[in-house]
C-alpha cells in the first residue's frame, strides 16, 4: 500500500480474483491512491465496519456467496456517501436488474485499461477527468458531454 505521501484517497478493491485485485492495486497506487483489498463481499463489509477509512469502493459484480451489488447495498446502508464503481464483464446484467444507477455509482467494463480505471475513479471522485485535458477516448464521449456540457475536442 502506498503510504507516507499525499494520497488522492483510499480505495477498497473487492474482487474474488486475486490477479484482478493485484492489477487494480498496481494501477491505482501508480495514480496516487491507497488501496485495501478484499476477496469477497463479507470481508469488504467487515473492513467498512472496522476502523479503516475508505473513500471509494471498486466492486466486482460477479462474486460467489455475495454479489457485488448486494455487498454495495449493505455497505451503503453503513456509509450512504460511499461512491461505488462496479467493474463487470457483464454490464448488460447490471442494467437488466437496475436500469438506473444511484448517485455516486458508476460502472466500468472489464477488461479495463490503465487509463480507463484511473479516469473512472477520477470521474467518480471529482466529476471531471484530471489533467491532461485531452480529448476523451471514444467510449467516454457520451459521459464527457453529460458531465461537461461540452463537445470533446
Amino acid at each position, binding site marked *: 500500500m502506498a503510504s507516507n505521501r499525499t494520497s488522492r484517497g483510499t480505495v477498497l478493491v473487492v474482487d474474488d480474483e486475486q*490477479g*484482478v485485485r493485484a492489477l487494480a492495486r498496481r494501477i491505482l497506487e501508480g495514480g496516487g491512491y491507497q488501496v485495501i483489498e478484499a476477496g469477497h463481499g463479507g470481508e469488504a463489509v467487515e473492513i467498512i465496519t472496522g476502523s479503516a477509512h475508505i473513500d471509494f469502493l471498486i466492486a466486482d459484480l460477479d462474486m460467489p456467496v455475495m454479489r457485488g451489488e448486494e455487498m454495495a447495498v449493505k455497505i451503503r446502508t453503513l456509509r450512504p456517501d460511499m461512491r461505488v464503481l462496479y467493474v463487470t464483464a*457483464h454490464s448488460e446484467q447490471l442494467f437488466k436488474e437496475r436500469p438506473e444507477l444511484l448517485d455516486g455509482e458508476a460502472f466500468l467494463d472489464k477488461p479495463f485499461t490503465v487509463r480507463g480505471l484511473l479516469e473512472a475513479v477520477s470521474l467518480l471522485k471529482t466529476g*471531471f477527468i484530471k489533467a491532461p485535458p485531452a480529448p476523451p477516448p471514444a467510449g467516454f464521449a457520451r459521459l464527457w458531454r453529460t458531465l461537461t456540457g461540452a463537445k470533446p475536442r
Partner: protein
Amino acid sequence: MNIDPVKVHHLKNQLAIILGFSELLLEELAADDAHRPDVLQIHQAAKSALAELPALPAHEFSSPRPRSAEATDGQ
C-alpha cells in the same frame, strides 16, 4: 462459439489480468528496450483471444443516467 458463461467469465478475468499487466509493462519499458516486442506480442495475443470470446464488452466507461455534476474539463 458455445461456451459455458462461467468459463467465459473466468477467461475474461484471466485475459484482463494479462492485458492489464502487459499494458503496465509497455508503459514502463523504454521504447528501445529489448523486451518490448515480446511484451507487445503477449498484449496483442491476449487482445486477439478476448475478441474470440462471445459478448465482448466495449472498453468504455459511462453512466446509464445523466449526472448533473458541476464539472469542468480539467484543472
